[in-house]
């Protein structure tokens, strides 16, 4: 196998480990944008707004909220660790596939234009 292929494969394995295992140890606190959007409101234990005025109160449902992977969990898997890890691993593979596809098409579009022997 070519040297570059090894590099890509080991990079993918690293990404799979990060998204599939390490992701379970990530902080669950609201992030930078969320914390600003939530400022001014009070929340109950289920994260529903109970009062106040904040940016987050105008938030509406997302068209993809019923996706089987919504919220970084795989629906139907009861074990949280497994559910988060599997969703992350699927995400890494999906992103690599979509990215590889987009860049491959972009590259294919170029080489068909000329024989790239421009001196």
């Amino acid at each position, binding site marked *: 196998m070519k040297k*570059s*292929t090894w*590099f*890509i494969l080991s*990079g*993918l394995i*690293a*990404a*799979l480990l990060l*998204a599939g295992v390490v*992701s379970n140890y*990530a*902080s*669950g*606190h*609201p*992030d*930078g*944008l*969320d*914390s*600003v959007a939530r*400022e*001014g409101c009070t929340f109950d234990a289920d994260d529903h707004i109970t009062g106040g*005025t*904040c*940016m*987050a109160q*105008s938030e*509406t*449902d*997302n*068209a*993809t909220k019923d*996706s089987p*992977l*919504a*919220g*970084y*969990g795989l629906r139907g898997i009861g074990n*949280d660790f497994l559910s*988060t890890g599997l*969703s*992350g691993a699927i*995400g*890494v593979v*999906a*992103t*690599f*596939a*979509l*990215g*590889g596809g*987009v*860049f*491959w098409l*972009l*590259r294919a*579009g*170029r080489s068909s234009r000329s024989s790239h022997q421009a001196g």
Partner: protein
Amino acid sequence: MPAVAMHISNGIIDNQIAVLFAGVALAGLALCFIQGRRELDDRLVPMAGLVAAFIFAVQMLNFQVLPGVSGHLLGGTLAAILVGPYLGAICVTIVLVVQALIFSDGGVTALGLNVTNMALLGTAAGYLVVATLLRVLPRRTWTLTATAVIASVVSVTVASQGFVLQYALGGATDVGRSLGAIAAAMAGTHLLIGLGEGVITALTVTYVAKVRPDLVYAVRNLRRPVVSEAVTA
């Protein structure tokens, strides 16, 4: 469980402004596709795919920056250093599309807002800092590492101010705070998040530059040449 990521949800910004920024994002991406295509060779195709997949993975890793506040890497600087600004912005966009469509992370109607902030602004700002510093700083082993940290801090802070601009133009809820206060709150937390991103970015690009310098765009194209190496024509 990882929290929802640092992406704008549906409804936070008015629809008209969301549509406006979808146009901005598309125009910016068109430029990236045209410019990026010139730089794309066979070796870069899988590398750019890997950069996107790696950013997706690291975006799941929220780290705490303040009591009760977390953040995660956005990836613009990492992508710009490894595959350049144009392909890098496309990499971050691919991550945002996968997150919005499959993981319901970031509103689908807010995709243009998020792409503008994180993929376009974040990558452009990170790249400008990287390009400047690598041309100015002496060529030492620590140069790329320090550059990655500084560029990440600037990149994430600039991206956060993109949201402030969008909120100023079309915020759906008036929260009774001045724009200056919102800008300061966003800049404050994102400065810290940028530092965290800087550590991750520096570790990653320093490692890749050590084992495969030929795969690092910034090393190939931007690094100041060693004076003694200068070839006379």
